[in-house]
């Protein structure tokens, strides 16, 4: 029994961490229409940043600043934001394909860098020497995981509320205006490039938060954690859940993560031994098919974006009897 509960806690923690990432992506793609092809790079920047800043000194690679944990997490988020700012500055003025390609390139280069630069991030062996915060007090067992889940849920709720407020605010209206018709927004004196950059950086900082929590959860991060697979999974979560809808983003995260773990389990349990090597391929075909299928048949996702009328037009004067 305790096994099941502890697995559920583990599952919920991972799914909630991913849900935060999906929320970040939703701000970029769902609300602003910015294609981020390198989700995993910003997620990874958060994870690596947090662990390197918050870890104990290690001889082999950079790090060991042993910063107070919240500061380390903020540092990781800032690193993700900085990366997004540089990429955004270079590409957001251009046609949208450039952002897609450049972000995809960032992800490739990021994985390549952390895998090869041992002096920087431990290379293929990953970043070690990070101690989970409050471990002395809570131990390593179930209690710790439960408390960590609470923290993650808190972060998820905070992110959700922040984004809901943001989307409902005049700034959120501006994002949708630019997504729908850039020229119209420009004619009203708005600066699409600047607004896009803000949205892109904000979304990436949220991705960094998600990565930082992920790294904290495992107290370890290696190049295996920043493979393109994660980008595809996070996209599938957003598209299935419903881009433009924060609730859909969270729902999609739990649904797809559930389906992914269940299909992995079923394949390893029931597929013949000689086919085990190919379970990964089967899962990728499935996730690719889910992305394409949703786009074709249910492009707005399971929980579609609720279209809001921000301000009803005034009743025409004639009707007021003037």
């Amino acid at each position: 029994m305790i096994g099941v509960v502890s697995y559920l806690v583990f599952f919920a923690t991972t799914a909630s961490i991913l849900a935060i990432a999906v929320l970040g992506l939703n701000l970029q793609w769902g609300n602003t229409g910015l294609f981020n092809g390198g989700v995993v790079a910003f997620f990874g920047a958060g994870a690596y940043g947090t662990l390197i800043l918050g870890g104990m000194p290690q001889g082999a690679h950079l790090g060991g600043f042993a910063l107070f944990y919240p500061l380390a997490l903020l540092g990781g988020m800032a690193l993700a934001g900085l990366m997004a700012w540089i990429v955004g500055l270079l590409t957001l003025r251009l046609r949208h394909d450039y952002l897609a390609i450049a972000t995809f390139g960032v992800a490739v280069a990021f994985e390549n860098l952390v895998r090869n630069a041992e002096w920087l991030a431990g290379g293929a062996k990953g970043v070690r020497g990070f101690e989970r915060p409050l471990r002395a007090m809570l131990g390593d067992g179930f209690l710790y995981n439960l408390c960590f889940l609470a923290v993650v849920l808190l972060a998820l709720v905070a992110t959700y509320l922040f984004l809901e407020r943001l989307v409902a605010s005049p700034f959120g209206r501006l994002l949708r205006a630019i997504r729908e018709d850039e020229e119209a927004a420009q004619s009203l004196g708005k600066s699409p490039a600047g607004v896009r950059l803000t949205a892109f950086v904000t979304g990436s900082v949220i991705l960094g938060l998600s990565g930082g929590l992920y790294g904290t959860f495992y107290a370890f991060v290696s190049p295996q954690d920043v493979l393109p697979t994660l980008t595809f999974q996070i996209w599938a979560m957003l598209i299935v859940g419903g881009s433009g809808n924060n609730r859909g983003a969270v729902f999609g995260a739990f649904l797809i993560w559930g389906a992914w773990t269940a299909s992995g389990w079923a394949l390893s349990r029931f597929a013949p031994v000689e086919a085990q090597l190919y379970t990964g391929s089967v899962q990728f075909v499935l996730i690719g098919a889910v992305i394409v299928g949703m786009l074709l048949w249910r492009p707005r996702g399971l929980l579609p974006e609720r279209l809001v009328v921000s301000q009803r037009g005034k009743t025409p004067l004639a009707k007021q009897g003037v």
Partner: protein
Amino acid sequence: MIQNLIDGVLTGAYLSLGAIGLTLVMHILRFANFSHAELLSLGAYAALVCDALVSALVPVFAAKLGPLSLTWALTAAIAASMVLTGVSAVLIDRLVFKRLRDKGQELSMVFASFGMALVIRNLIGLIFGLSPQLYSKDIAFAVLLSQDPLILVKPDQVFVLIAALVLMMILHLVLSRTTFGYSLRAVAENPALAQVNGVNLSRTIMAVWVIGGGLAAVAGVFYGLSHQIIPVMGRDLVLPIFAAAIVGGIGSVYGAVLGGFVVGIAGNLALVILPSGYTPSVPFLLILAVLIIRPYGLFGEARA
């Protein structure tokens, strides 16, 4: 150093072929097609199957051509693969991209192309297995061109370079000298106006996919001749060919050719100063450099 330069030119040959199709599709359909590199794998595997078929049916053709590891069978297989891959590209467009275009969801096409890339790449892995394959089991020996500086070139690589240049020349003639070439450029400039002038839009789009798929097939086979054929080759090729298209300027065929060589040479020259592990990042650095210095590439033009 000179060896790296030569290797770079040879790498550039297949990158250019891949980038031409990509840049045409990006220009005319206005989306970054991340599944284009999978057409290279599709072509490479289609040629592998056709090669085995032809060699089995007509054993005479399995003999090698001079110093090359290329056979008549493989030559025929390349032609067949060009057709098959071109048709596949059209089918993929009909099944997925065209439907999204018709719905007016141009932005989603990038997502869909990623999804298709995953599906194609992993289906190939499921069908042909994950281990690398080769067109010829015999070792292709490199020929020593010069002792000092040391320069080694495989005959296959020279063939690849010449064949790629010939194909590019043919494409150049088609684009600049035929009515079809004009209508292609017209559609890229202004689809609505082109239609008013009697250009059949859907047929032109189909032709773009056939050309892009055909050239991608050749590029895939050439990649297979120079390295090996693996299901994940598309994953490793997608960034270099995007970089080639961006360096050349999206939409410019000549830019893509030049861009392919620039990316190939830069990747190989980087080996001189960087450890080989960093090679996959080189295309990204080139993209960044282009975006900083000349955002629309060497031959591209600004377009919203």
